[in-house]
């Protein structure tokens, strides 16, 4: 394992048992939530994981966190294999990987004060023994998350804060453990557009000031610009395109990435353009389409797409996409 990478994911699969097609059927059906994902993340790097609901991006995050058990494959974190650890063994890793959840209205316990919420991780991990030291950590985390001065907020309850402030509390409670990797699962999708920038800028600043690596999960390609170094587009449990932010946003190769990009609203009525709106919705990940998984919705599908399942093909040193058009 090279030291360059903080996280290396190899052939990761996560299947959920979906039951049997009939009561006495011998075959079992599986939801292929994450199906053979490879991913490498450098120290201090921000990667955006983009896809619609059901593409497996949240399951991937939960599996990385150890909140779901991987079906196959391996996850290396800071050189250590963390794929199958017991809760006890995982505890030290947990401290280094933290997660920010989507819904700041649901992810805070309404009966705890902000101080209790941010102190909790320290208590759970038995860190920062005496009260003064603990408080200092909490104040620092809150202020780093932009809740200044921290004393203003510590004694409040979540319902007394706005959505953006709550999301900052969630981020503070992740920061208090001084993690090396932050998994942000749709951290802004529930917030007003005017507040989204604030949270994204906050995450960007944390990367600058603390050198934290970030996996930023979103369904909206529009929010990943400026902030992400690389972008990975997921469809039905697989990464279908990965490359630097510039490569994916300005020159996407996979038709799915192209479509996702084309539907992002452009805030200028003079630039209204033809959008590539895919019809239908992501098929269910139980019975996957044969051949390329995207072919039933693909506007440029060829006959061969119904038979052959493309792997990621290199376009440049950093840019790869899984489309048979590129193989020609």
């Amino acid at each position, binding site marked *: 394992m090279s030291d360059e990478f903080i996280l290396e994911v190899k052939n990761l699969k996560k299947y959920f048992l979906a039951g049997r097609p009939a009561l006495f059927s011998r075959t079992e059906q599986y939801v292929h939530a994450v199906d053979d994902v490879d991913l490498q993340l450098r120290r201090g790097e921000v990667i955006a994981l983009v896809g*619609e*609901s059901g593409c497996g991006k949240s399951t991937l995050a939960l599996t990385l*966190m150890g*909140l779901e058990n991987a079906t196959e494959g391996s996850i290396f974190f800071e050189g250590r294999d963390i794929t199958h650890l017991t*809760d006890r063994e*995982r*505890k030290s890793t*947990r*401290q280094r990987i*933290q*997660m920010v*959840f*989507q*819904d700041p209205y*649901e*992810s*805070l*316990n*309404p*009966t*705890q004060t902000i101080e209790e919420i941010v102190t*909790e*991780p320290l208590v*759970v*991990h038995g860190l920062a023994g005496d009260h003064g030291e603990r408080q200092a950590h909490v104040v620092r985390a809150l202020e780093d998350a932009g809740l200044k001065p921290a004393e*203003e907020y*510590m004694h409040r*309850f979540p319902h*007394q804060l*706005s959505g*953006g402030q709550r999301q900052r509390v969630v981020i503070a409670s992740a920061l208090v*453990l001084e993690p090396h990797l932050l998994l942000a699962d749709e951290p802004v999708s529930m917030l*007003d*557009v*005017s*507040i*989204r*920038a*604030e949270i*994204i*800028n906050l995450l*960007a600043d944390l990367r600058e000031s603390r050198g934290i690596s970030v996996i930023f999960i979103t*369904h909206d*390609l*529009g*929010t990943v*610009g*400026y902030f992400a170094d690389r972008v990975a587009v997921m469809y039905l449990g697989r990464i279908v395109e990965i490359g630097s932010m510039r490569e994916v946003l*300005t020159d996407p190769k996979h038709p799915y990435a192209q479509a*996702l990009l084309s*539907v*992002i*609203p*452009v*805030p200028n*009525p*003079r630039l209204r353009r033809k959008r590539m*709106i*895919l019809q239908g*919705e992501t098929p269910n990940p139980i019975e996957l389409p044969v051949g390329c998984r995207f072919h039933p919705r693909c506007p440029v599908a060829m006959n061969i797409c119904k038979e052959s399942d493309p792997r990621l093909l290199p376009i440049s040193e950093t840019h790869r996409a899984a489309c048979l058009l590129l193989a020609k």
Partner: protein
Amino acid sequence: MAVQTAELKPSVPSSPLTGFWREFRKNRMGVVGLVMLVLIVIVAIFAPALAPYDPETSEGITSRDIYNPPSTDHWFGTDDAGKDVLSSFIYGSRVSLIVGFFAAFISIVIGGVIGIVAGYYGGRLENILMRFTDTMLVIPDLPLIVVIVALTKPSLLNIIFVIGLLGWTTTARVVRSQTLAVKSRKFVLRARAIGAGTRHIILHHILPLVLPLLVVNAILVISLAILNESTLSFLGLGDPTATSWGQMLNFAFGRGAMSAGAWWALVVPGFGIVWVVLGLTLLGHGLEQILNPRLESHHLMPGRPTVQTEAVDVTGKRSDVPVLLDVRNLSIHYVGDGQVAKAVHNVSFQLHEGELLGLVGESGCGKTTLMMALMRLLPAAGQIASGSIRFGGWDLATLKEDEMAEIRWKGISIIFQGAMNALNPVRTVGDQIAEAINKHMPGLPHGVVNARVLELLDLVGIAAEHKDHYPHQYSGGMRQRAMIAMALSCDPQVVIADEPTTALDVMIQAQILELLDDLRKKLGLAIIFVTHDLGVVAEMCDSVLVMYGGMTAEYASVDSIYNAPRHPYTQELLKAFPDLSKPEKRLTSIPGYPPKLNALPDGCRFAPRCPLAFERCVTEMPRLHELNGGHIVGCHLVEEKS
């Protein structure tokens, strides 16, 4: 000179407990129950001081004292042994309450533990525990208690244990279902992500949220335990050494109180039981009303406030197409606790035939309130204070409710925010659309309605075979389409779409927007599109109304809004929006938060967050200015510059 950004009020620590007490004081039933209970507890505690006689001694009692009617010596007469009924009643309250509280304590602990463990761990353990609970629940309590107590020595301690050990089943079931609900909430997942163990999660995250329910349940379990004890004593299975109300009834009943006409010997202990149980029930009901928000009631404020707002007639004329909906100087107030909150102030706009108007602003800026006023669906505390809403020759602001009912859906219909979750899960989607048609056009033959449902589904892009499917078989996007079909069911001229794509994925969002745009062209609909997303507005709207703090910030054609915005709020909103053509550009956000309705600034409502604010903005509310081409701006800067 810039005004400092939104000042934060010093944090006021208000614990949920003080908030709870404030709510509780307002609940008449709960307070009455609590007072009844406290009184009887005081009586029990101070029994030796309150009782005129000692019920344990029979000194000086002769056969002439038996069943004496109420007199000055014995206020409630005497019983079969010539003892003072009042004194026995007072001492009896001790036994009833002790049995009630201790037995309930045992029940609550057992039920709570079983409920939480079953709910949290799930799987086989849950199965075993809950089947055991079900079995216990099916066995009739009272006969079992009677049998067990009859077999063991009838002492107070035995009675407490038997009642306690058999009374936990309902608690276990209630606690389990609440635990299941809490367990699935995101903060529990977050606690696991932090690395918290099971014990920590149960103690810090599950228990605090189960506790309110447990308290309500405990109150009911106490009253059941008291009733059970009384029944046991009445059947002669009570502790013979302890006088309880049940035992008083037993003695009076068994020793000829009825034939002697000594009603007091029966009525007094009976009254005690009713008093305690009633007190507990009222208290339990009161607590439940506060702790279970589903039962919460709206408090209506009678009367309409007479508030005059300065009328400024600026709507701007931008089109020669006939006007469908003409809103002028509309102000909406929320009235509650003697305060008036000016939620919407002096908003005017015009919606032309076939126009798509975007209504933009952050959460809490009055968008939804304004739309609810158009539909006349404001909550009880909300009132249209002034202004008019002209639609097809009527003024909707003053229309009577039954006339308004005619216009709703047939004239103006609405797709509510998050409406896709509002479908009834046990009825097919086709059925629910048919219901909407029948409700507004009663008497249509079944075949016509059916054909109309199919037509509507086709219109919104749902295949006919999905008509008889249930909502859970629909995806989020399809459900939203079904809601649009429902809104179109009575051929409205105006459709209000309140954040119809929030919470949907980008691709589905694009599909829904395309659909709305198609429908507008096909049916000539006028649409008011409410959103906080400026990008969506730029993609499809003709004109845009930007609202801030319940007021018009800017109202203009979509081109002016994006390419020549004049209000600082519009400018800031645009900067906050990611521009894909410049992905390297750092996003800016507007510091601070929209004003609260109960703390609106005196001057311009945007001043505390405005980067360009100057003295005048803090003291004086800006007027609406009309620029060329019907471009309306509510900002002092327009005046300064011209």
